[in-house]
């Protein structure tokens, strides 16, 4: 009876520890899952699958180490093995062209293009930013997703992407320039441009 009782107590402790450590990170996981899948139901499924896999492997998680990086690593693994096909593949955006657009802006005097105010309640993002993000090559998109959307540190993102911290910084730099270049392109396409601070 003592053995059975201890086992039940161990399970309860494990559950409590998991809830205390992992559940506060679920909103960030869910935000990132929404951006990865671009579908509310798929995002919910991805978060649930991630949590279940993490819960099953929770004994292997070393207390005191970085659970945020651990959880995001699991989510990317789950996404890559089971959800990738459900997502629209990258169209292979011309990064060089967007970086050139960015450099032209940098050398000029135009104001930055405005971004749209997202609907916070709907967890939405400026649709132009979302579209541009979606078209980034995967390695660059992941850097932005982890740091800007998931709010991971460079070190945590490096763990998830299995690369050096410097690589995270470098990818972020190029990705953010491209996203800005995409905003410039969209602004020009829609005839909206603020020059010298005036619309």
């Amino acid at each position, binding site marked *: 009876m003592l053995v059975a009782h201890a086992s039940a107590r161990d399970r309860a402790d494990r559950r*409590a520890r998991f809830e205390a450590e992992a559940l506060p990170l679920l*909103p960030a996981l869910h935000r990132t899952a929404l951006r990865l899948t671009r579908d509310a139901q798929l995002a919910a499924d991805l978060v649930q699958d991630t949590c*279940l896999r993490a819960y099953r492997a929770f004994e292997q998680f070393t207390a005191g180490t970085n659970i945020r990086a651990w959880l995001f690593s699991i989510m990317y693994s789950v996404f890559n093995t089971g959800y990738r096909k459900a997502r629209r593949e990258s169209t292979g955006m011309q990064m060089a062209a967007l970086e050139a657009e*960015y450099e032209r802006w940098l050398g000029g005097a135009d104001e930055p293009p405005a971004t749209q105010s997202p609907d*916070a309640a709907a967890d939405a993002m400026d649709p132009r930013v979302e579209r541009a993000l979606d078209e980034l090559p995967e390695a660059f998109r992941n850097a932005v997703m982890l740091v800007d959307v998931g709010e991971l540190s460079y070190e945590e993102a490096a763990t998830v992407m299995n690369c050096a911290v410097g690589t995270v910084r470098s990818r972020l730099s190029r990705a953010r320039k491209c996203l800005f270049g995409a905003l410039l392109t969209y602004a020009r396409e829609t005839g909206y441009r603020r020059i010298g601070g005036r619309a």
Partner: protein
Amino acid sequence: VNAPAVHLGERLQDVVDNRLGAAELEQARSHLAGCARCRRELAALRRVRGALAPRPGQAGLPPALGVALMQALDREDAAAQAPPSRRRIGTVAAWGWALAACLVAAMASALLLWPGRTAVAPQPWTAAVAREFDAYRDARLPLSMKTGEVAELERFFSASDLGFHTRVFDLGMMNYRIEGGAVRRLGDRPSALYVYRGPDDARLLCEMFQGRLDELPPAPRTASHNGIDFRIYREGALTAVYWAEGDVICVLVSDIDSEAVLALAFAKAAPAA
């Protein structure tokens, strides 16, 4: 204007993401003060960063997903609790099921006959609620909604699709301030849990779920007030007072004086509408 020949380049990301120490930040600021190109680049990067970052008040985890997750974890726990023979039975070929059943029966008999090795009974709600209180007191209980507003918490539970109406008690008159709540599970049922902080840092937990009082184990003490029946349990230093409002069971739990918990329950319990 003599613009610096070397620009900050990728180091600007560290500025945008607040990764620089005091000395490095001062160097970067010094450069930015004299470099229009880097200032312009910093503004662009901040614009992108701002468009991507979550905003204050942005929707958190959808309540339905929170409930589904708790249910999934419950299923995991239940599967882990099942005897290995039962967990593996799904993989046994059909022709072997009879043999497997015999083995299960034999194992069950052995468990019953082996002194001190009885099967683990499901945790009664009283013990489960007590664990919730312990987790809250030890700051291990995640509150998915933190608020000091009773109405906001009621809206949160209403949006959580629990299947029953959750009344959040306003205990302000008794100097208990609401701190927040969460959707939880008690056994196989979703529950609404919310917590209060009171005088002398006292903690009080309330939990509601669908059920009937007669599903509870026999109570060592009962009481009646305004036509409502109360069941009072002790779990270590904790007092748990249960009552029913229609098909919803309410429980108040605390480690304060038992009579004080009962008085709070008397004050807030209402007959079913």
